């Protein structure tokens, strides 16, 4: 299982995911889905997306309910114990704690785009034994 950030999740939904250097189902977290859905909805109201899509709601729905053969959104409840532990141990915010907690509980790898790697994130993931790789897109 490979957990991806919002940028890679969008590419996954579009069927344009680059090589992630690992095999398995591609998934994302609720926090990354929230970031992605908020950006798509915001852009649908005011940005380039609204000029490209006749009905921006269709794009929002695609992100809120992604095709499961391309991207699955993880249920945060199933890894809440690890999420809470990561938040307390590493003083991580919800985005990082959910990401690392999900990876630990499912023994999943993490793939992030370069702009979405926080300063402390690689050290947290290394301490938790999580396989992290940065994907340049």
């Amino acid at each position, binding site marked *: 299982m490979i957990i991806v*950030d*919002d*940028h890679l999740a*969008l*590419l996954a*939904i*579009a*069927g*344009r995911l680059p090589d992630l250097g690992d095999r398995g189902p591609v998934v994302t977290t609720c*926090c990354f889905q*929230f*970031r*992605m859905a*908020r*950006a*798509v909805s*915001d*852009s649908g109201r005011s*940005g*380039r*997306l609204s000029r*490209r*899509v006749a009905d921006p709601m*269709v*794009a929002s729905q*695609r*992100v809120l*309910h*992604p*095709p*499961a*053969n391309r991207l699955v959104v993880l249920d945060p409840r199933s890894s809440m114990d690890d999420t809470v532990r990561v938040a307390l141990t590493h003083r991580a*915010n*919800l*985005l*990082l704690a959910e990401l690392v907690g999900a990876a630990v509980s499912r023994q999943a790898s993490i793939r992030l*785009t370069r*702009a*979405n*790697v*926080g*300063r*402390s*994130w690689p050290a947290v993931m290394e301490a938790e034994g999580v396989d992290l790789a940065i994907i340049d*897109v």
Partner: protein
Amino acid sequence: MYAQAVHRTNIYLTESEQAGLDARAAAEGSTRSDVVRGIVDRELNLAEDTDLDDILGELAAELADRARALASDDPDVRIE
């Protein structure tokens, strides 16, 4: 003929599930397999939209930038 290749899959259903599928198939003039495929497609959001795929793929980097900007003053979901 099918629009895509199909694969034979054996699943176990309860009597009521089987009866429900058969009733739906009879009402729609289709088959049990058609009904199951339709349910699976809807549940897993598998309807294809290649135009939307193209647009989301082209705008992915821009939308990721927008996601970071929107999260910049949102401590729960910003990149720290």
